[in-house]
Protein backbone atom coordinates (compact mmCIF):
# COMPACT_ATOMS: atom_id res chain seq x y z
CA UNK A 1 0.00 0.00 0.00
CA UNK A 2 2.69 2.45 1.11
CA UNK A 3 4.77 1.44 -1.88
CA UNK A 4 1.90 2.05 -4.27
CA UNK A 5 1.39 5.56 -2.98
CA UNK A 6 5.13 6.10 -3.16
CA UNK A 7 5.20 5.07 -6.80
CA UNK A 8 2.30 7.38 -7.56
CA UNK A 9 3.99 10.33 -5.92
CA UNK A 10 7.33 9.54 -7.50
CA UNK A 11 5.67 9.58 -10.91
CA UNK A 12 4.10 12.92 -10.10
CA UNK A 13 7.36 14.39 -8.90
CA UNK A 14 9.22 13.05 -11.91
CA UNK A 15 6.62 14.58 -14.21
CA UNK A 16 7.03 17.94 -12.49
CA UNK A 17 10.80 17.77 -12.63
CA UNK A 18 10.62 16.80 -16.28
CA UNK A 19 9.28 20.22 -17.19
CA UNK A 20 12.63 21.67 -16.17
CA UNK A 21 14.69 18.74 -17.37
CA UNK A 22 13.08 19.02 -20.78
CA UNK A 23 14.05 22.67 -21.07
CA UNK A 24 17.61 21.87 -20.02
CA UNK A 25 17.86 19.03 -22.55
CA UNK A 26 16.39 21.20 -25.29
CA UNK A 27 19.06 23.74 -24.42
CA UNK A 28 21.72 21.07 -24.66
CA UNK A 29 20.44 19.98 -28.06
CA UNK A 30 20.30 23.54 -29.35
CA UNK A 31 23.71 24.64 -28.06
CA UNK A 32 22.37 26.88 -25.34
CA UNK A 33 21.83 26.54 -21.61
CA UNK A 34 18.15 26.63 -20.77
CA UNK A 35 17.07 27.70 -17.28
CA UNK A 36 20.19 27.92 -15.15
CA UNK A 37 19.68 31.01 -13.01
CA UNK A 38 17.56 29.95 -10.04
CA UNK A 39 19.64 28.00 -7.57
CA UNK A 40 22.73 26.06 -8.51
CA UNK A 41 22.54 25.33 -12.25
CA UNK A 42 18.81 26.03 -12.26
CA UNK A 43 17.94 23.37 -9.70
CA UNK A 44 15.41 25.59 -7.97
CA UNK A 45 13.70 26.55 -11.23
CA UNK A 46 10.96 24.07 -10.44
CA UNK A 47 10.22 25.93 -7.20
CA UNK A 48 10.08 29.22 -9.05
CA UNK A 49 7.71 27.74 -11.61
CA UNK A 50 5.52 26.38 -8.86
CA UNK A 51 5.33 29.72 -7.10
CA UNK A 52 4.47 31.41 -10.36
CA UNK A 53 1.77 28.97 -11.34
CA UNK A 54 0.19 28.93 -7.88
CA UNK A 55 -0.07 32.70 -7.67
CA UNK A 56 -1.36 33.29 -11.16
CA UNK A 57 -4.94 34.39 -11.39
CA UNK A 58 -7.07 31.30 -11.82
CA UNK A 59 -9.61 32.74 -14.19
CA UNK A 60 -12.73 30.89 -15.26
CA UNK A 61 -14.26 32.64 -18.25
CA UNK A 62 -17.85 33.69 -17.63
CA UNK A 63 -18.86 32.39 -21.05
CA UNK A 64 -17.66 28.87 -20.32
CA UNK A 65 -19.55 25.83 -19.09
CA UNK A 66 -18.06 26.03 -15.65
CA UNK A 67 -18.47 22.52 -14.28
CA UNK A 68 -16.98 20.83 -17.32
CA UNK A 69 -14.36 23.52 -17.64
CA UNK A 70 -13.10 22.74 -14.15
CA UNK A 71 -13.50 19.02 -14.53
CA UNK A 72 -11.49 18.64 -17.76
CA UNK A 73 -7.98 19.35 -16.43
CA UNK A 74 -8.49 16.98 -13.50
CA UNK A 75 -9.52 14.19 -15.83
CA UNK A 76 -6.60 14.91 -18.11
CA UNK A 77 -4.25 14.76 -15.13
CA UNK A 78 -5.61 11.49 -13.80
CA UNK A 79 -6.46 9.49 -16.90
CA UNK A 80 -2.99 8.34 -17.85
CA UNK A 81 -1.56 8.60 -14.36
CA UNK A 82 -3.65 5.61 -13.33
CA UNK A 83 -1.90 3.46 -15.92
CA UNK A 84 1.22 3.44 -13.72
CA UNK A 85 -0.69 0.94 -11.56
CA UNK A 86 -0.36 -1.82 -14.14
CA UNK A 87 3.28 -1.24 -15.10
CA UNK A 88 5.53 -3.84 -13.50
CA UNK A 89 8.59 -2.11 -12.11
CA UNK A 90 10.34 -5.31 -11.17
CA UNK A 91 9.39 -9.01 -11.29
CA UNK A 92 7.52 -8.88 -7.98
CA UNK A 93 6.62 -5.20 -7.76
CA UNK A 94 3.53 -4.04 -9.55
CA UNK A 95 0.69 -2.14 -7.95
CA UNK A 96 -2.12 -4.23 -9.45
CA UNK A 97 -1.30 -7.38 -11.37
CA UNK A 98 -4.20 -7.29 -13.83
CA UNK A 99 -4.76 -10.14 -16.24
CA UNK A 100 -6.03 -7.63 -18.78
CA UNK A 101 -3.30 -5.07 -18.14
CA UNK A 102 -2.97 -3.93 -21.73
CA UNK A 103 -6.71 -3.53 -22.13
CA UNK A 104 -6.72 -1.29 -19.08
CA UNK A 105 -4.08 0.88 -20.66
CA UNK A 106 -5.99 1.04 -23.94
CA UNK A 107 -9.12 2.02 -22.07
CA UNK A 108 -7.39 4.82 -20.23
CA UNK A 109 -5.76 5.98 -23.44
CA UNK A 110 -9.17 6.21 -25.09
CA UNK A 111 -10.54 8.05 -22.07
CA UNK A 112 -7.78 10.61 -22.38
CA UNK A 113 -9.54 12.09 -25.43
CA UNK A 114 -12.41 13.23 -23.24
CA UNK A 115 -10.60 15.86 -21.19
CA UNK A 116 -9.32 17.44 -24.41
CA UNK A 117 -12.75 17.45 -25.96
CA UNK A 118 -14.35 18.75 -22.76
CA UNK A 119 -11.77 21.47 -22.39
CA UNK A 120 -12.13 22.60 -25.98
CA UNK A 121 -15.91 22.54 -25.98
CA UNK A 122 -16.52 24.06 -22.56
CA UNK A 123 -14.13 26.95 -23.21
CA UNK A 124 -16.66 28.30 -25.70
CA UNK A 125 -13.86 29.60 -27.88
CA UNK A 126 -13.51 28.68 -31.52
CA UNK A 127 -9.78 28.14 -31.37
CA UNK A 128 -10.15 25.86 -28.38
CA UNK A 129 -12.89 23.95 -30.16
CA UNK A 130 -10.83 23.60 -33.33
CA UNK A 131 -7.92 22.34 -31.26
CA UNK A 132 -10.13 19.86 -29.49
CA UNK A 133 -11.60 18.59 -32.76
CA UNK A 134 -8.15 18.15 -34.20
CA UNK A 135 -7.02 16.37 -31.07
CA UNK A 136 -9.97 14.02 -31.19
CA UNK A 137 -9.55 13.18 -34.85
CA UNK A 138 -5.84 12.67 -34.42
CA UNK A 139 -6.20 10.54 -31.33
CA UNK A 140 -8.89 8.40 -32.97
CA UNK A 141 -6.62 7.82 -35.93
CA UNK A 142 -3.67 6.86 -33.86
CA UNK A 143 -5.62 4.93 -31.25
CA UNK A 144 -6.55 2.36 -33.88
CA UNK A 145 -3.04 1.13 -34.30
CA UNK A 146 -1.97 2.00 -30.77
CA UNK A 147 -3.91 -1.09 -29.83
CA UNK A 148 -3.06 -3.13 -32.93
CA UNK A 149 0.66 -2.55 -32.58
CA UNK A 150 0.53 -4.09 -29.12
CA UNK A 151 -1.32 -7.16 -30.33
CA UNK A 152 1.83 -8.65 -31.83
CA UNK A 153 3.37 -8.52 -28.38
CA UNK A 154 0.27 -10.10 -26.90
CA UNK A 155 0.38 -12.87 -29.47
CA UNK A 156 3.98 -13.63 -28.64
CA UNK A 157 3.40 -13.64 -24.90
CA UNK A 158 -0.02 -15.32 -25.25
CA UNK A 159 -1.27 -13.13 -22.43
CA UNK A 160 -2.57 -9.65 -21.70
CA UNK A 161 -0.77 -9.68 -18.38
CA UNK A 162 2.15 -7.25 -18.23
CA UNK A 163 4.33 -9.54 -16.12
CA UNK A 164 3.81 -12.41 -18.54
CA UNK A 165 4.72 -10.11 -21.38
CA UNK A 166 7.98 -9.11 -19.76
CA UNK A 167 8.75 -12.71 -18.90
CA UNK A 168 8.24 -13.71 -22.54
CA UNK A 169 11.18 -11.46 -23.42
CA UNK A 170 13.85 -13.25 -21.39
CA UNK A 171 15.64 -14.55 -24.44
CA UNK A 172 14.92 -11.84 -26.95
CA UNK A 173 13.52 -8.39 -26.40
CA UNK A 174 10.38 -7.73 -28.37
CA UNK A 175 11.92 -4.77 -30.14
CA UNK A 176 13.64 -7.15 -32.59
CA UNK A 177 10.90 -9.58 -33.62
CA UNK A 178 8.25 -6.88 -33.20
CA UNK A 179 10.27 -4.07 -34.73
CA UNK A 180 7.39 -2.59 -36.73
CA UNK A 181 5.11 -2.96 -33.77
CA UNK A 182 7.62 -0.97 -31.74
CA UNK A 183 7.91 1.77 -34.35
CA UNK A 184 4.16 2.19 -34.74
CA UNK A 185 3.56 2.02 -30.99
CA UNK A 186 6.16 4.70 -30.50
CA UNK A 187 4.55 6.94 -33.10
CA UNK A 188 1.09 6.34 -31.68
CA UNK A 189 2.48 7.07 -28.22
CA UNK A 190 3.83 10.39 -29.46
CA UNK A 191 0.40 11.22 -30.81
CA UNK A 192 -1.29 10.10 -27.62
CA UNK A 193 0.83 12.49 -25.55
CA UNK A 194 0.23 15.30 -28.08
CA UNK A 195 3.97 15.62 -28.36
CA UNK A 196 5.79 17.16 -31.28
CA UNK A 197 5.45 16.53 -34.17
CA UNK A 198 1.91 15.47 -33.27
CA UNK A 199 1.09 18.57 -31.28
CA UNK A 200 -1.67 19.55 -33.68
CA UNK A 201 -4.18 20.31 -30.92
CA UNK A 202 -1.81 22.81 -29.34
CA UNK A 203 -0.13 24.32 -32.36
CA UNK A 204 0.67 27.80 -31.12
CA UNK A 205 1.08 29.37 -34.52
CA UNK A 206 -2.34 28.53 -35.94
CA UNK A 207 -4.52 27.90 -32.91
CA UNK A 208 -2.66 29.97 -30.34
CA UNK A 209 -2.55 26.95 -27.99
CA UNK A 210 -5.57 24.95 -28.98
CA UNK A 211 -7.79 23.40 -26.40
CA UNK A 212 -6.21 24.92 -23.29
CA UNK A 213 -6.19 28.49 -24.55
CA UNK A 214 -8.64 29.69 -21.87
CA UNK A 215 -6.91 27.94 -19.00
CA UNK A 216 -4.65 29.70 -16.55
CA UNK A 217 -2.99 29.12 -13.24
CA UNK A 218 -3.17 25.70 -11.69
CA UNK A 219 -5.73 24.39 -14.17
CA UNK A 220 -3.27 24.99 -16.98
CA UNK A 221 -0.62 23.44 -14.74
CA UNK A 222 -2.65 20.24 -14.56
CA UNK A 223 -2.75 20.00 -18.36
CA UNK A 224 0.92 20.81 -18.49
CA UNK A 225 1.99 18.22 -15.93
CA UNK A 226 -0.49 15.78 -17.45
CA UNK A 227 1.50 15.89 -20.67
CA UNK A 228 4.68 14.92 -18.84
CA UNK A 229 2.86 12.19 -16.95
CA UNK A 230 1.72 10.72 -20.23
CA UNK A 231 5.29 10.86 -21.55
CA UNK A 232 6.53 8.94 -18.54
CA UNK A 233 3.71 6.41 -18.81
CA UNK A 234 4.19 5.82 -22.52
CA UNK A 235 7.96 5.49 -22.08
CA UNK A 236 7.51 3.00 -19.29
CA UNK A 237 5.07 1.04 -21.45
CA UNK A 238 7.52 0.99 -24.36
CA UNK A 239 10.10 -0.33 -21.93
CA UNK A 240 7.76 -3.03 -20.68
CA UNK A 241 6.36 -4.09 -24.00
CA UNK A 242 9.35 -3.92 -26.28
CA UNK A 243 12.54 -3.51 -24.29
CA UNK A 244 12.36 -6.28 -21.77
CA UNK A 245 11.05 -4.29 -18.81
CA UNK A 246 13.30 -4.84 -15.83
CA UNK A 247 15.71 -7.23 -17.59
CA UNK A 248 19.30 -6.15 -17.74
CA UNK A 249 22.67 -7.43 -16.66
CA UNK A 250 24.45 -6.74 -13.40
CA UNK A 251 22.50 -3.95 -11.78
CA UNK A 252 19.16 -4.18 -10.04
CA UNK A 253 15.85 -4.59 -11.86
CA UNK A 254 14.47 -1.23 -10.77
CA UNK A 255 17.55 0.54 -12.07
CA UNK A 256 17.20 -1.01 -15.51
CA UNK A 257 13.52 -0.20 -15.65
CA UNK A 258 14.06 3.44 -14.71
CA UNK A 259 17.05 3.74 -17.00
CA UNK A 260 15.15 2.48 -20.02
CA UNK A 261 12.14 4.65 -19.23
CA UNK A 262 14.37 7.70 -18.94
CA UNK A 263 15.96 6.85 -22.24
CA UNK A 264 12.61 6.87 -24.01
CA UNK A 265 11.55 10.05 -22.28
CA UNK A 266 14.78 11.54 -23.62
CA UNK A 267 13.89 10.29 -27.09
CA UNK A 268 10.57 12.14 -26.84
CA UNK A 269 12.44 15.35 -26.11
CA UNK A 270 14.96 14.69 -28.85
CA UNK A 271 12.17 14.28 -31.38
CA UNK A 272 10.59 17.48 -30.18
CA UNK A 273 13.86 19.27 -30.76
CA UNK A 274 14.39 17.99 -34.28
CA UNK A 275 11.13 17.57 -36.17
CA UNK A 276 8.87 20.31 -37.51
CA UNK A 277 5.11 20.04 -37.22
CA UNK A 278 3.64 18.58 -40.45
CA UNK A 279 0.46 19.74 -42.05
CA UNK A 280 -2.66 18.36 -40.42
CA UNK A 281 -3.87 16.24 -43.34
CA UNK A 282 -0.38 14.76 -43.74
CA UNK A 283 -0.56 13.56 -40.15
CA UNK A 284 -3.84 11.80 -40.84
CA UNK A 285 -2.55 10.35 -44.13
CA UNK A 286 0.56 9.07 -42.44
CA UNK A 287 -1.52 7.39 -39.77
CA UNK A 288 -4.07 5.73 -42.02
CA UNK A 289 -1.98 4.93 -45.08
CA UNK A 290 1.35 3.97 -43.56
CA UNK A 291 1.22 3.09 -39.87
CA UNK A 292 -2.10 1.29 -39.92
CA UNK A 293 -1.24 -1.16 -42.74
CA UNK A 294 2.19 -1.62 -41.21
CA UNK A 295 0.73 -2.78 -37.91
CA UNK A 296 -1.68 -5.10 -39.68
CA UNK A 297 1.14 -6.67 -41.67
CA UNK A 298 3.17 -6.96 -38.51
CA UNK A 299 0.28 -8.67 -36.73
CA UNK A 300 -0.37 -11.09 -39.60
CA UNK A 301 3.27 -12.12 -39.78
CA UNK A 302 3.50 -12.56 -36.01
CA UNK A 303 0.40 -14.73 -36.05
CA UNK A 304 1.79 -16.72 -38.97
CA UNK A 305 5.06 -17.45 -37.17
CA UNK A 306 3.26 -18.41 -33.98
CA UNK A 307 1.16 -20.81 -36.02
CA UNK A 308 4.24 -22.37 -37.60
CA UNK A 309 5.87 -22.75 -34.22
CA UNK A 310 2.84 -24.42 -32.67
Amino acid sequence: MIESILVLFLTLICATIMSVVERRILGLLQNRYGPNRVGWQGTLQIVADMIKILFKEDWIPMFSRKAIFVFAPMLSFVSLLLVIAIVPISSNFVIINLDIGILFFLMMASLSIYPVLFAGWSSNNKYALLGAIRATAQTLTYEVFLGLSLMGVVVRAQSFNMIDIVNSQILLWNCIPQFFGFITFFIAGLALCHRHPFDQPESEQELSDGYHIEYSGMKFGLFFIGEYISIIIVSSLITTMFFGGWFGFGLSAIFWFIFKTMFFAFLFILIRASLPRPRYDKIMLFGWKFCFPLTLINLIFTAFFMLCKA
Partner: protein
Amino acid sequence: MSIIKTLVSQIRSIWLTFINIFSKRETIMYPEKSVYLAPRYRGRVILSRNLNGEERCVACNLCAAVCPVGCISLKKSISKTNRWYPKFFRINFSRCIFCGLCEEACPTAAIQLIPDFELSEYKRQDLVYEKEDLLISGPGKYSDYDFYQFSGVEIEGKKKGNLDYESNPIDVKTLLP
Protein backbone atom coordinates in the same frame (compact mmCIF):
# COMPACT_ATOMS: atom_id res chain seq x y z
CA MET B 1 8.01 5.48 -51.73
CA SER B 2 8.16 9.14 -50.85
CA ILE B 3 6.95 8.33 -47.36
CA ILE B 4 10.02 6.16 -46.80
CA LYS B 5 12.27 8.89 -48.12
CA THR B 6 10.67 11.32 -45.69
CA LEU B 7 11.12 8.90 -42.83
CA VAL B 8 14.80 8.48 -43.62
CA SER B 9 15.31 12.21 -43.79
CA GLN B 10 13.50 12.66 -40.47
CA ILE B 11 15.66 10.04 -38.79
CA ARG B 12 18.66 11.83 -40.21
CA SER B 13 17.52 15.14 -38.77
CA ILE B 14 16.93 13.51 -35.38
CA TRP B 15 20.49 12.20 -35.52
CA LEU B 16 21.87 15.60 -36.53
CA THR B 17 20.09 17.20 -33.61
CA PHE B 18 21.40 14.51 -31.31
CA ILE B 19 25.06 15.04 -32.14
CA ASN B 20 24.64 18.67 -31.16
CA ILE B 21 24.87 17.44 -27.57
CA PHE B 22 28.61 17.17 -28.04
CA SER B 23 29.18 20.58 -29.53
CA LYS B 24 29.97 23.72 -27.60
CA ARG B 25 27.27 25.96 -26.21
CA GLU B 26 27.04 29.32 -27.89
CA THR B 27 25.37 31.28 -25.11
CA ILE B 28 27.35 34.14 -23.61
CA MET B 29 26.89 34.00 -19.85
CA TYR B 30 26.31 37.71 -19.77
CA PRO B 31 26.38 39.00 -16.19
CA GLU B 32 29.32 36.78 -15.27
CA LYS B 33 31.19 37.23 -18.52
CA SER B 34 31.25 40.76 -19.83
CA VAL B 35 30.33 41.37 -23.42
CA TYR B 36 32.86 42.82 -25.85
CA LEU B 37 31.51 46.08 -27.22
CA ALA B 38 33.18 47.80 -30.13
CA PRO B 39 34.64 51.23 -29.33
CA ARG B 40 32.06 52.88 -31.53
CA TYR B 41 29.12 51.07 -29.91
CA ARG B 42 26.41 53.61 -29.16
CA GLY B 43 25.40 53.03 -25.59
CA ARG B 44 24.93 55.34 -22.65
CA VAL B 45 25.18 59.10 -23.22
CA ILE B 46 27.75 61.16 -21.31
CA LEU B 47 28.91 64.75 -21.13
CA SER B 48 32.66 65.22 -21.29
CA ARG B 49 35.13 67.88 -20.16
CA ASN B 50 38.04 69.49 -21.96
CA LEU B 51 41.68 69.10 -20.98
CA ASN B 52 41.49 71.84 -18.34
CA GLY B 53 38.64 70.04 -16.64
CA GLU B 54 35.97 72.52 -17.67
CA GLU B 55 32.76 71.15 -19.03
CA ARG B 56 32.64 71.27 -22.77
CA CYS B 57 28.95 71.83 -23.26
CA VAL B 58 28.07 75.40 -24.27
CA ALA B 59 24.32 74.91 -23.93
CA CYS B 60 23.67 75.64 -27.59
CA ASN B 61 20.61 73.35 -27.53
CA LEU B 62 21.53 71.70 -30.82
CA CYS B 63 21.39 68.25 -29.30
CA ALA B 64 17.98 68.87 -27.79
CA ALA B 65 16.76 70.17 -31.15
CA VAL B 66 18.00 67.22 -33.12
CA CYS B 67 16.96 64.50 -30.70
CA PRO B 68 14.16 62.60 -32.46
CA VAL B 69 12.40 61.63 -29.25
CA GLY B 70 13.04 64.90 -27.46
CA CYS B 71 14.51 63.40 -24.35
CA ILE B 72 17.16 66.06 -23.73
CA SER B 73 16.33 69.23 -21.87
CA LEU B 74 18.77 71.93 -20.75
CA LYS B 75 18.94 75.58 -19.84
CA LYS B 76 21.65 78.02 -20.76
CA SER B 77 23.52 80.18 -18.26
CA ILE B 78 26.58 82.42 -18.56
CA SER B 79 29.51 82.11 -16.21
CA LYS B 80 31.60 84.98 -14.83
CA THR B 81 34.27 84.29 -17.43
CA ASN B 82 31.68 84.99 -20.12
CA ARG B 83 31.44 81.35 -20.99
CA TRP B 84 28.19 79.59 -21.72
CA TYR B 85 27.32 76.49 -19.73
CA PRO B 86 24.16 74.49 -19.09
CA LYS B 87 22.48 75.38 -15.84
CA PHE B 88 20.84 71.99 -15.85
CA PHE B 89 21.15 69.21 -18.33
CA ARG B 90 18.74 66.33 -18.21
CA ILE B 91 18.37 63.21 -20.32
CA ASN B 92 15.45 60.88 -19.90
CA PHE B 93 16.93 57.49 -20.72
CA SER B 94 13.59 55.76 -20.70
CA ARG B 95 12.92 57.56 -23.98
CA CYS B 96 16.39 57.71 -25.52
CA ILE B 97 16.74 55.43 -28.53
CA PHE B 98 20.55 55.67 -28.65
CA CYS B 99 20.53 56.94 -32.20
CA GLY B 100 23.63 59.08 -31.71
CA LEU B 101 22.19 62.13 -33.47
CA CYS B 102 22.97 64.31 -30.46
CA GLU B 103 26.62 63.37 -30.75
CA GLU B 104 26.59 64.25 -34.45
CA ALA B 105 24.97 67.60 -33.83
CA CYS B 106 27.14 68.75 -30.94
CA PRO B 107 29.67 71.41 -32.06
CA THR B 108 31.83 71.01 -28.97
CA ALA B 109 32.06 67.21 -28.79
CA ALA B 110 30.58 67.48 -25.32
CA ILE B 111 27.85 64.90 -25.64
CA GLN B 112 29.11 61.45 -26.53
CA LEU B 113 27.79 57.91 -26.65
CA ILE B 114 30.04 55.33 -25.04
CA PRO B 115 30.02 51.52 -25.16
CA ASP B 116 28.01 50.77 -22.04
CA PHE B 117 24.46 49.48 -22.12
CA GLU B 118 23.97 48.54 -18.49
CA LEU B 119 21.44 51.20 -17.71
CA SER B 120 18.68 49.22 -16.05
CA GLU B 121 16.96 50.62 -12.98
CA TYR B 122 14.14 49.39 -10.81
CA LYS B 123 12.22 52.66 -10.88
CA ARG B 124 11.48 54.54 -14.06
CA GLN B 125 12.19 57.81 -12.30
CA ASP B 126 15.79 56.72 -11.81
CA LEU B 127 16.30 56.71 -15.56
CA VAL B 128 16.20 60.50 -15.68
CA TYR B 129 19.85 61.50 -15.51
CA GLU B 130 20.85 64.94 -14.28
CA LYS B 131 24.05 66.75 -15.19
CA GLU B 132 25.90 65.29 -12.19
CA ASP B 133 25.14 61.80 -13.46
CA LEU B 134 26.08 62.58 -17.04
CA LEU B 135 29.26 64.59 -16.60
CA ILE B 136 32.47 62.56 -16.56
CA SER B 137 35.86 63.91 -15.54
CA GLY B 138 37.75 63.15 -18.76
CA PRO B 139 37.54 64.18 -22.40
CA GLY B 140 35.95 61.00 -23.72
CA LYS B 141 36.65 60.04 -27.30
CA TYR B 142 38.11 63.33 -28.55
CA SER B 143 40.98 63.93 -26.19
CA ASP B 144 42.50 67.18 -27.53
CA TYR B 145 39.44 69.02 -28.76
CA ASP B 146 38.61 72.25 -26.98
CA PHE B 147 35.92 74.33 -28.67
CA TYR B 148 37.13 77.72 -27.45
CA GLN B 149 40.66 77.02 -28.67
CA PHE B 150 39.43 76.36 -32.19
CA SER B 151 36.60 78.84 -32.65
CA GLY B 152 36.62 82.59 -32.74
CA VAL B 153 34.26 82.94 -29.83
CA GLU B 154 35.46 85.38 -27.22
CA ILE B 155 35.69 84.53 -23.55
CA GLU B 156 37.58 86.03 -20.66
CA GLY B 157 41.30 85.45 -21.06
CA LYS B 158 40.97 84.91 -24.78
CA LYS B 159 40.40 87.80 -27.13
CA LYS B 160 39.58 87.57 -30.83
CA GLY B 161 42.77 86.88 -32.77
CA ASN B 162 44.57 85.20 -29.90
CA LEU B 163 44.69 81.86 -31.63
CA ASP B 164 47.84 81.25 -33.66
CA TYR B 165 46.01 80.71 -36.92
CA GLU B 166 43.94 83.87 -36.51
CA SER B 167 44.90 87.42 -37.50
CA ASN B 168 43.90 90.23 -35.18
CA PRO B 169 40.63 91.86 -36.14
CA ILE B 170 40.82 95.18 -37.95
CA ASP B 171 39.79 98.12 -35.81
CA VAL B 172 37.49 100.06 -38.14
CA LYS B 173 37.36 103.08 -35.80
CA THR B 174 41.01 104.05 -36.12
CA LEU B 175 42.78 105.82 -39.03
CA LEU B 176 46.24 104.34 -38.49
CA PRO B 177 47.34 101.88 -41.15
